[in-house]
């Protein structure tokens, strides 16, 4: 009996009127955990009941503590008939189970009903007393911390990054059970909400166990999703990266490095798998495997592309032996793991050694009913297959790990596309295992790693290139080879040198598909997929070139399957990496040369493209320093033993000279216009309009090239659904519709947020779904952050300074590289003033905040004023009565409201892992919430827009309330993982499911940090007002 859960129901407010006769409500509360239920007294005839209950105590296993949510139901008492439910609150008590997170959950929670939405609020206090668990074979994993953030959380240090953890659980979907035919929609929705909440808890507990097995203490980059497979069931799955984290404030006291059982394995002779030439799995056969038992199991493995841009690598140069050693070490460290994957997208400095390129795999599956929920082998096997494929793709790129790894599904009827993607990379072994790596080796390795370009250097063997490629010497260190274009799924490394600013680049694509059943359908889809992948890739490449940039970060490709079409949407942030060569232009070539007007048209088009490139270069401030030919050519290839190597060296040096002509014809990207399709493509390239001036956008955490954020942030979700006219749909028309939809959506966002200029839309996350035949739904979540324009202009600094400045923000981690820092920072004295400048900026930004605070008391002011006026008037009119008890009572009554009226505490929400101008001082636990909302009076609720608008606002409100109750004032790494919307306008019905998650945190403004350094900030954000309501 290792835990005692204590719950107290304090009060309710703004309850709905349940009794029409009296216009009041007789409310009471049921508190349920597991199979135990407690009830409060009925508070008669009030919309603001004060229950002030005793402490309800539940004695429970910690396994249950992890799995079960606390269920609070508010009901209206009815003497003669059944009590009516007003609504429910589910509280995930997981945050109370870690030692460092929240200690109490206390606050106002919206009372939620799946049919009516939010109906008033309830004030609840929850505590947990945990006893020490002596059972070694326990099933719980209390104490393992979970973070949605895909980088090492700000107030922690990564001691060891253990690696990939995954788990999935399956169940029947209550919506499809037989009982659903006889129960109310409300009961069905609640069953679903409860089930998913339970499954999430179970999943988290199981992942926690895996982490403990690996001797980690935390999961970072935790991503949990659910697949609504309809008839065949409900899958909740999660992936994450197990880590051992060390709280930064505590002085290096940490559990001794665990003697990993992998020691022996490390000594095992390393067998570097020979990489085999061109890598793609086009040859993978379509196999129709009859699955276990009676179930028909159809599976198609889809040809997958590896995106890297071009490249031919040199595995070893000066650093050869060390590098080999390094590789050997990491290899062995990683080999013990089944999947050397990391869900992180940003890393401690020095972690990422080289980046190979994007690897992805997809497979098309036919769903069948899950027969035994306790053994989800089929789904496990599917994912294992895909992960295996990713792993082999990474190997082919000479990489032993995959970073920025993510998995997703798209389901339509019984067909499901499973997708996985990540970035192949070579990692520094130091973080992957306990600190037994020889220090001297490490040191020398680090000296060899050039600042800001190391990760661009190719990890694969130049001789055995996995694909036809195009290599040059690095434009930064001129020692190693780099590809001419780099695609990745991770964030831009903090030490990377970027020229100019970045921008959001999207490739959008639709393909019509015939309606078909089962296997035929799956086959049709898998036949289409490679073409889509290819086209998406081409579009990305073209758009990148058009922007005059050479690298993509945060690439995310989503393929969505619908009844009669497939949609592809790729988003990434384009940048110009200083280490990579200048991209060539785009050249158009016509196929029918003898037509004069056609020629003219082509040349006109060419001119337009060239103009656009020039314009973009100016817009994004891309002006790389001119590099003279000699310098580039200077590194003399070392003599090699093998002639093949020499040959390739000479080849690549040829390329270097060619490349220097940057806009020369040869290296330019040639677009052939041979049919109308291609023409359309070129046109669509040119129709993408840049954001209005003062706006930037990216889908990464921060915008490359902007680093002077001010404190104003606005997170938002925007949803659009369009109906296609079903008449003669063609691929072109479809593409245009989809393109317009996305572009118009972006335009609307820019317009809506115009008051924030200059600002940047960060972490722009598009999700496409096809809820019905002719409907396309696009959901966007992003955050707009303002920045200081004046300072932005001053940021043309040398990269050393820049990297120093960046490093200073992560100052703690910086200590790990004392040598480098000292040698660099000594000569560069302009740094300290620059820092001062930054500080002054932050204090400047503090001023409006203070003003806002003043405004916040505006309403208070009214009240105070009202009071003084009142007092005054009493004094003048009835001086005598001042002493009467009546008068005094009245006085007390009057002075009460201002304190009860302390306005609701502000909770910030952001998809980023940080809050500009503020420091996160505490992580309170993850927020992972699932809601269903249904209506049978769609028109009355303002149609589909009104319905969804209200629902999303309610979801935000519930997230904020939970964070505030934990004592937090922000959610970071917020993500809306699912927004499934279904409508039936004929029946006046609609239903929507939303799943969101994030990390609840406490942050302190940097400006405040100086003033109140020791004071705990939690006090001010807690809605502590339990005092009486305004007299009504």
């Amino acid at each position: 009996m290792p835990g005692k859960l204590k719950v107290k129901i304090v009060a309710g407010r703004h309850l709905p009127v349940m009794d029409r006769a009296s216009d009041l409500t007789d409310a009471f509360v049921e508190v349920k955990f597991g199979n135990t239920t407690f009830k409060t007294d009925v508070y008669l005839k009030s919309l603001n009941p004060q229950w002030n209950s005793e402490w309800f105590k539940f004695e429970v296993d910690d396994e249950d503590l992890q799995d079960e949510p606390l269920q609070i139901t508010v009901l209206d008492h009815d003497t003669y008939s059944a009590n009516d439910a007003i609504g429910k609150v589910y509280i995930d008590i997981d945050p109370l189970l870690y030692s460092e997170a929240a200690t109490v959950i206390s606050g106002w929670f919206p009372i939620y009903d799946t049919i009516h939405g939010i109906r008033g609020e309830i004030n609840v206090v929850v505590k947990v007393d945990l006893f020490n668990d002596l059972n070694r074979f326990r099933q719980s994993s209390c104490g393992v911390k979970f973070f949605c953030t895909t980088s090492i959380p700000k107030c922690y240090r990564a001691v060891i990054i253990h690696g990939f953890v995954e788990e999935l659980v399956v169940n029947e979907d209550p919506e499809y059970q037989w009982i659903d035919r006889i129960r109310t929609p409300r009961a069905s929705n609640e069953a679903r909400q409860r089930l998913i909440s339970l499954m999430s808890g179970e999943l988290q507990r199981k992942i926690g166990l895996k982490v403990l097995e690996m001797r980690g203490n935390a999961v970072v980059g935790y991503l949990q999703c659910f697949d609504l497979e309809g008839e065949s069931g409900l899958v909740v799955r999660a992936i994450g990266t197990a880590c051992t984290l060390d709280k930064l404030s505590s002085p290096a006291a940490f559990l001794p490095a665990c003697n990993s059982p992998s020691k022996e394995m490390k000594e095992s002779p390393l067998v570097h798998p020979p990489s085999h030439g061109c890598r793609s799995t086009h040859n993978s056969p379509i196999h129709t495997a009859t699955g276990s038992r009676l179930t028909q199991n159809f599976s198609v493995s889809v040809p997958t592309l590896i995106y890297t841009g071009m490249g031919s690598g040199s595995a070893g140069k000066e650093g050869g032996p060390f590098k080999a050693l390094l590789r050997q070490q990491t290899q062995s460290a990683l080999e013990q793991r089944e999947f050397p994957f990391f869900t992180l997208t940003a890393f401690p400095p020095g972690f990422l050694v080289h980046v190979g390129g994007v690897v992805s795999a997809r497979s098309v599956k036919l769903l069948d009913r899950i027969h035994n929920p306790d053994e989800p082998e089929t789904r496990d096997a599917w994912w294992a297959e895909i992960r295996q494929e990713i792993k082999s793709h990474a190997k082919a790129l000479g990489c032993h790990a995959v970073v920025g790894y993510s998995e997703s599904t798209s389901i339509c009827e019984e067909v499901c596309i499973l997708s996985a993607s990540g970035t192949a990379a070579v990692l520094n072994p130091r973080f992957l295992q306990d600190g037994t790596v020889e220090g001297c080796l490490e040191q020398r390795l680090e000296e060899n790693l050039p600042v800001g370009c190391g990760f661009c250097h190719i990890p694969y063997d130049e001789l055995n290139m996995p694909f036809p490629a195009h290599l040059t010497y690095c434009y930064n260190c001129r020692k190693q080879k780099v590809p001419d274009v780099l695609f990745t799924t991770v964030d831009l490394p903090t030490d990377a040198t970027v020229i100019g600013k970045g921008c959001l680049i999207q490739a959008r694509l639709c393909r019509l598909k015939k309606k078909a059943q089962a296997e035929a359908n799956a086959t049709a889809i898998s036949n289409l997929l490679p073409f889509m992948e290819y086209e998406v890739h081409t579009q990305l490449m073209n758009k990148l070139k058009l922007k005059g940039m050479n690298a993509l970060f945060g690439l995310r490709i989503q393929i969505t399957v619908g009844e009669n079409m497939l949609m592809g949407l790729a988003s990434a942030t384009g940048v110009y990496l200083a280490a990579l060569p200048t991209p060539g232009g785009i050249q158009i070539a016509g196929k029918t040369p003898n037509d004069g007007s056609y020629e003219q048209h082509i040349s006109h088009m060419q001119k337009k493209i060239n103009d656009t490139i020039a314009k973009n270069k100016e817009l994004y401030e891309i002006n790389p320093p001119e590099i003279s030919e000699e310098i580039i050519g200077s590194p003399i290839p070392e003599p090699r033993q093998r002639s093949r190597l020499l040959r390739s060296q000479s080849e690549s040096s040829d390329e270097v000279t060619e490349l220097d002509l940057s806009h020369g014809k040869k290296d330019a990207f040639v677009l052939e216009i041979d049919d109308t399709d291609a023409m359309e493509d070129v046109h669509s390239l040119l129709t993408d309009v840049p954001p209005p001036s003062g706006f930037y956008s990216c889908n990464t955490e921060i915008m490359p090239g902007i680093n002077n954020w001010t404190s104003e942030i606005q997170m938002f979700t925007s949803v659009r659904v369009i109906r296609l006219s079903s008449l003669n749909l063609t691929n072109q028309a479809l593409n245009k519709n989809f393109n317009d939809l996305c572009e118009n959506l972006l335009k609307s966002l820019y317009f809506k947020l115009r008051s924030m200029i200059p600002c940047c839309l960060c972490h722009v996350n598009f999700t496409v779904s096809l809820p019905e035949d002719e409907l396309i739904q696009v959901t966007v979540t992003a955050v707009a952050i303002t920045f200081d324009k004046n300072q932005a202009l001053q940021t043309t600094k040398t990269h050393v300074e820049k990297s120093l400045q960046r490093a200073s923000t992560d100052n703690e981690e910086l200590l790990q590289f004392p040598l480098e820092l000292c040698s660099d920072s000594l000569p560069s004295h302009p740094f300290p003033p620059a820092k001062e400048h930054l500080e002054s900026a932050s204090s400047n930004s503090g001023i409006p905040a203070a003003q806002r605070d003043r405004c916040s008391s505006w309403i208070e002011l009214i009240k105070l004023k009202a009071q003084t006026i009142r007092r005054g008037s009493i004094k003048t009119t009835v001086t005598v009565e001042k002493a009467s008890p009546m008068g005094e009572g009245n006085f007390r009554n009057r002075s009460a409201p201002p304190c009860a009226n302390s306005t609701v505490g502000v909770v910030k929400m952001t998809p980023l892992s940080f809050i500009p101008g503020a420091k996160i001082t505490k992580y309170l636990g993850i927020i992972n919430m699932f809601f269903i909302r249904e209506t049978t009076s769609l028109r009355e609720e303002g149609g589909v827009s009104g319905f969804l608008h209200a629902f999303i606002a309610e979801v935000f409100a519930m997230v904020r309330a939970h964070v505030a109750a934990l004592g937090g004032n922000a959610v970071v790494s917020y993500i809306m993982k699912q927004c499934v919307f279904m409508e039936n306008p004929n029946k006046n019905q609609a239903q929507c499911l939303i799943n969101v998650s994030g990390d609840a945190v406490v942050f302190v403004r940097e400006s405040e940090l100086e003033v109140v350094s020791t004071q705990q900030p939690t006090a001010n954000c807690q809605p502590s007002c339990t005092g009486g309501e305004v007299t009504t």
Partner: protein
Amino acid sequence: MTSELDIFVGNTTLIDEDVYRLWLDGYSVSDAVSLRVRSGILEQTGATAAVLQSDTMDHYRTFHMLERLLHAPPKLLHQLIFQIPPSRQALLIERYYAFDEAFVREVLGKKLSKGTKKDLDDISTKTGITLKSCRRQFDNFKRVFKVVEEMRGSLVDNIQQHFLLSDRLARDYAAIVFFANNRFETGKKKLQYLSFGDFAFCAELMIQNWTLGAVDSQVADMDVDLDKEFLQDLKELKMLVADKDLLDLHKSLVCTALRGKLGVFSEMEANFKNLSRGLVNVAAKLTHNKDVRDLFVDLVEKFVEPCRSDHWPLNDVRLFLNQYSASVHSLDGFRHQALWDRYMGTLRGCLLRLYHD
């Protein structure tokens, strides 16, 4: 391609002041869009009409959802659904409860009932204010009236407590409630020259001095209902004009004091008895509800108009009224000095405010 659904939800609710104004003014989405287009916003921002349409729809939807909360502003402060900075909350409330001068002049003093609501169509046509906006303003008046009608304590205070309005707006509402409760006639043709501000000024004076609250701050309706006892007592003032000696004495006191100081002395002297009779008779009649309603009509007929026809300058009116009220203290035969002061103090303030073109 048609847009089925199009929404934008921010963690902090975006409020566009211009669109809010258009919404409050009762324009339909399409009218609002065309008005926004005319304002030149497209040129400024480079947006398209479609973007503007979507933006306007979105704001309208938000306002529609907020409206329920605006009906009880403290709810807006406590609710969790919309995260709105307090300064914006204050703006939303203040603007929502703001009203048009033209509208309030039509409704002021009328019973806030269904019957009046039916007349909103005519008011809308007459004033050019959209019917929607008229309804909002009317409902606001009625809502405030219902809430504070039977409440004890200061009227302005109560309004501020329950509707979180600024001081100024709360005072205006106090006047509206006071007028509605006492049903003062303000719509007659001869009262057309008066502004809402004039009436509000008088209302405030009357609330301060003529209501129950002026003597006892703990009774219900203290600021809304006139002090009945006081109105009854006012009959006593009648002797000022009924008693011929008293009237003559009063006249001579005033004339002596003002001789040489008034530009319109002779007119005053000639009219004194008429004016005094007028003012005192108004007081004496206030026991009847019907006459209470006609208070302003009577004041204008009996005092403002006669003076105005003789072209009294405002300053002369002031001097006269001061002297007229003060001289009563020297009338030995008159015992109701306090009553006179309570009546005339307020009336003097009102008359001075009402005396203009």
